[in-house]
């Protein structure tokens, strides 16, 4: 894992991230950028797909938008946090009103980021979040 070694980490396996956003273009770009940064990133474009993935697979982290079609991002956050192994959540949204931020935190999100987020900022937050939950 050359990338992880470069980041100063040496996990036994690649960190698995679920990225939920209805902007396919965005999911596609971030998946490639995160893969480059050494993460295993899977995308979900709608809430149902995201929930199916959360239920079926194991993830180390979830990054999600809040405004999604049909279901609210908050519902997905609660689902991710309620499993036998709660998944840490980072919110990445274009609408970060104080009320929404508070609701996301209440639902169990760790951090709320305002789009656009550079990959450098995102990897930094990912590392911090993982470190916090590893304790």
């Amino acid at each position: 894992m050359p990338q992880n070694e470069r980041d100063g980490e040496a996990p036994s396996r690649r960190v698995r991230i679920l990225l939920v956003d209805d902007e396919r273009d965005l999911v596609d770009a971030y998946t490639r950028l995160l893969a480059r940064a050494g993460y295993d990133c899977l995308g979900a474009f709608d809430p149902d797909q995201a929930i199916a993935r959360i239920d079926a697979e194991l993830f180390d982290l979830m990054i999600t938008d809040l405004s999604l079609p049909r279901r609210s991002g908050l519902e997905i956050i609660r689902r991710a946090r309620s499993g036998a192994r709660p998944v840490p959540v980072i919110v990445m949204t274009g609408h970060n009103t104080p009320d929404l931020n508070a609701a996301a935190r209440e639902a169990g999100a760790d951090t709320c980021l305002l789009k656009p987020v550079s990959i450098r900022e995102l990897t930094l937050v990912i590392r911090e979040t993982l470190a916090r939950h590893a304790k």
Partner: protein
Amino acid sequence: MKTGFLTHTGRPHPARLAIRYALAGIVWIAVSEYLLAALPIHSLLLNRFLFVSVTTVLLFIVASRYAHTLQFSITVRDEALARAHGYFDSAVEGIVTADCEGLIRQMNPRAQEMFGYHEVELLGHPIEVLIPTRYRKEHPALRKAFHREGRWRATGVGREIIAIRKDGSEFPAEITINHVPTHHGDLAIAFVSDISERRAMEREARRSETLNALGAVATGIAHELNNPLAVIASRIEVMLMPGQELPPELRQDLMVLQRNVERASRISQNLLSLARQRPGVRQPLDINKAIEEALLLVRSDSRGTRLTFDLDLDSILPPVIADPTSLEQVLINLVSNARDAGATHLAIQTATDSARLSNIRISISDDGEGIAPAALERLFQPFFTTKPKGTGLGLWLSRRMVQDHGGSMEVKSEVGKGTTFTILLPVREAAPALIEGHMHAAK
């Protein structure tokens, strides 16, 4: 009705009393002869004497009662006149009385103060001297029509006019005209209120309403732009990923795109920071300390420039109830503007406002290039900027933040000399209206 106002005493009017007594006298003269004849007195002389004596006594009673009533009525009238003078002299409205020829007969002290004349300067002059020249021609006709109608006129109540002072300056006024018939001809009494302050407040309210609406639209747009910006930014990052084989020119172009996407998102974030800062925690804040902390941040950022600071902070200022982060942001904005305007020296002063002791005044003066009058007018408008890379949001946001604290922010500037920003912040807890506005804005 009018005489009633002056002589209403609960007693009959002297004139009415006189008629009543005259009637009683006639009755007495008519019946006295029969009454006296009925008496068993046979001397004519004694009969006459009795008639004269009784009449004299009756006349004396009547005269003294009449005199008493008259005296009382005069006292009441004097009191009423004194009261009327009191109303006239101490009225908050200007009162101008004119006769049917339109000549000024009387002006109360408030009217003299309002128009800048002494009463004697205007007595006997046409009332038209109090309105601007452009309206003078048509006024006599209006005035005559008013007197012809001779009663309260709907258009005379609360009508708005433009008035002119002795020094030639004009002001908006509201007038109510009352028509009073007197023995010496009709009088028109005009009650005048200077409404320039009310007009200014209305203008300011409309302006801030417009700005608020504009702000709401701008934050909405910022939100909507964030997703496409994120797509563009992430795609550029993908293309610039290490290991990509790119011709150098293309890489350069992509980096230009990246810088400009960053700039666009900075604009969007600046706009949204307004919404984010609203629920900032308000706490008692030592304004001097806040200034010193903001300067620590600015100083660390102003290396390489020759900006010097001169602080004159009043050490016994009471704390204000404020959100430290947003006030710090305001100060940082002002200092960095001064730096961008080429200032080398910055004087920051805090004091209790001499005009309103419940306010703290912070003034920040720089010796930069100053702001041209045309730019000064638009300075607090969103997206107005004179800097090549400015977002035009810093001062707009700063003023909004200060206003959110119930304060105000003013600017004075002279090209080539420098600029002074003055912030007034109330010392007391936020007023209910402010909190209401705050909640409304947070929805």
